[in-house]
């Protein structure tokens, strides 16, 4: 572990981490790795730096590589910095049948970025994602915890407008509010 590591969870996040670890039997604390990475992503600005991953390794008393290989496997973990609002538009078959390509193109044009990119002001990252189990309310997109369903271009306009007006810090899946 890096001794220069300055990252540290808040007291609330530490308490939640301990509760997570206690869900598994003695000696099986590694099982809490994915939940702790969700917490780390919320605590440290919406992405997982190698310092953040090393810190999680130190909490669970496992090697850093055990954390890296897991963080790089799962699509919800960002290994690069992202915008404050990550817009995740589903583009798998059932959403495509109902216009998800149009939704992606519209947002790309509106924000002047391509899928996978972040706006210059660091406000939005646009991602296309695979099926989010919202096929009956397609097309859909997720921002943080929230599912936005039965999308229309008007709804997309409203959602983006609201993000611009209200979002101050990173909207992550697990949020600091939930950690408290």
């Amino acid at each position, binding site marked *: 572990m890096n001794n220069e590591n300055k990252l540290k969870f808040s007291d609330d996040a530490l308490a939640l981490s301990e509760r997570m670890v206690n869900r598994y039997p003695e000696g099986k604390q590694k099982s809490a790795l994915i*939940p702790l990475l969700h917490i780390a992503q919320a605590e440290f600005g919406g992405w997982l730096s190698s310092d953040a991953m090393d810190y999680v390794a130190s909490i669970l008393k496992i090697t850093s590589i055990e954390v890296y290989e897991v963080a790089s496997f799962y699509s919800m973990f960002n290994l690069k910095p992202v915008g404050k609002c990550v817009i995740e538009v589903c583009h798998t078959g*059932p959403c*495509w*049948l*109902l216009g998800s390509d149009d939704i992606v193109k519209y947002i790309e044009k509106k924000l002047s970025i391509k899928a996978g990119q972040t706006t210059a002001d660091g406000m939005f990252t646009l991602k296309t994602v*695979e099926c989010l*189990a919202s096929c*009956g309310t397609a097309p859909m997109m997720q921002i943080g915890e929230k599912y936005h369903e039965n999308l229309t271009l008007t709804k997309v306009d409203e959602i983006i407008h609201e993000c611009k007006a209200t979002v101050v810090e990173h909207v992550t899946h*697990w949020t600091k509010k939930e950690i408290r």
Partner: protein
Amino acid sequence: MGRKLLTENINIPGIQTLEVYRHHGGYDGLKKALGMSPDAIVEEVKKSGLRGRGGAGFPTGMKWSFLAKPDGVPRHLVCNADESEPGTFKDRYMMEHIPHLLIEGMAIGSFALGANTSYIYIRGELLYVYHILQKAIDEAYAAGLLGKNIMGSGFDFDLHLHSGAGAYICGEETALIESLEGKRGNPRIKPPFPAIQGLWQRPTVVNNVESIMAVVPILKMGGDEYAKIGVGKSTGTKLISACGHINKPGVYEIELGLPVEEFIYSDEYCGGIRNGKGLKAVVAGGSSVPILPKDLILKLANGEPRLMTYESLSDGGFITGTMLGSGGFIVMDEDTSVVKNLYTFTRFYHHESCGQCSPCREGTGWMEKILHKILDGHGTLEDVDLLWDIQSKIEGKTICPLGEAAAWPVASAIRHFRNEFEEYVNNPSSIKKDNHYYRLNNISSEVA
């Protein structure tokens, strides 16, 4: 009107709460179960004929009876709530609206299996559902339905949630177990099966959300009564997630045996094809199962009506049939490009392949690229044959069924819609004329 066993009370205001759930008979199934012997519960589930609702259709009671019970080794029941199969959203709907039904089912199942600690593995993106379930679990602990000596039975039972982080492969039970151990979701080589060596090498049963929920009515009504619903070896009710170009998308609980035609066209279910269009094709059991054209989904090859059962949907094998799978029912109207829809599926499997087995890791990528080439107007007839060749070399050659799941959609699209591939290859201008994507009425022309 079919019988509703899982969704009967789902629209009652406040059914998410323990108080209202109990007021409507909630936890009566658990109370009854705790007065029975564990083996008697397994016997009821066997008698019910319940088959795994996650997609494989393996008899649940038999799966339970395979669980090894070595002395002094803890056992676990794990709920697979990693619902990720394109076209499927029933588990999410159920957990969101009636979370205590899952908790009650987990308690009954864990008692029957002798598991004192069990886990619900829920897909990471469904965080809002995680919070709903956590609230319900907290309520159940406070009421003595979870924890030490539940309902005064002497049985200690802890139930925990575990969040995933975005990986379709973790719906495969051994990948799920790996993920629950804090590792990459790489499926294990079987045997040993989880019933012998599962979570932390302990005997483990992994069941889908709907299967676990179904145990509650089975206990209440008895396995024999449950088995009276349905047709042949397709007993009971099934949740169908209906989506695509239909008037009434949503989750429907059907009695197994309902004719497919009635399910699509009746106002009680899908309500027919939207915008007055005709039906082109259906993917009846989630993206992995073979697509069938209109004539074959509505009727068997011999002209008899096709029914919503495991057997009827698979009648004719893969030449003229498909599978019930997870019950993800994706409907496509006459304007749909089957090739483009297939491209989105193939891109999905390429993205979700864990990378352990070369045929799947490489083959899914090649298939995606070839379909992209065809849709870009540069395809050749040899490309169609090459697609067929690649899918045939993935099927049966991988550790887990993701290989088959990626191969079957390609094979069936070529089998039933080869003319569409050939049209795109021979006449690329036809690709543009075909609706690549379905335009919503309210999507303006500024998107082009």
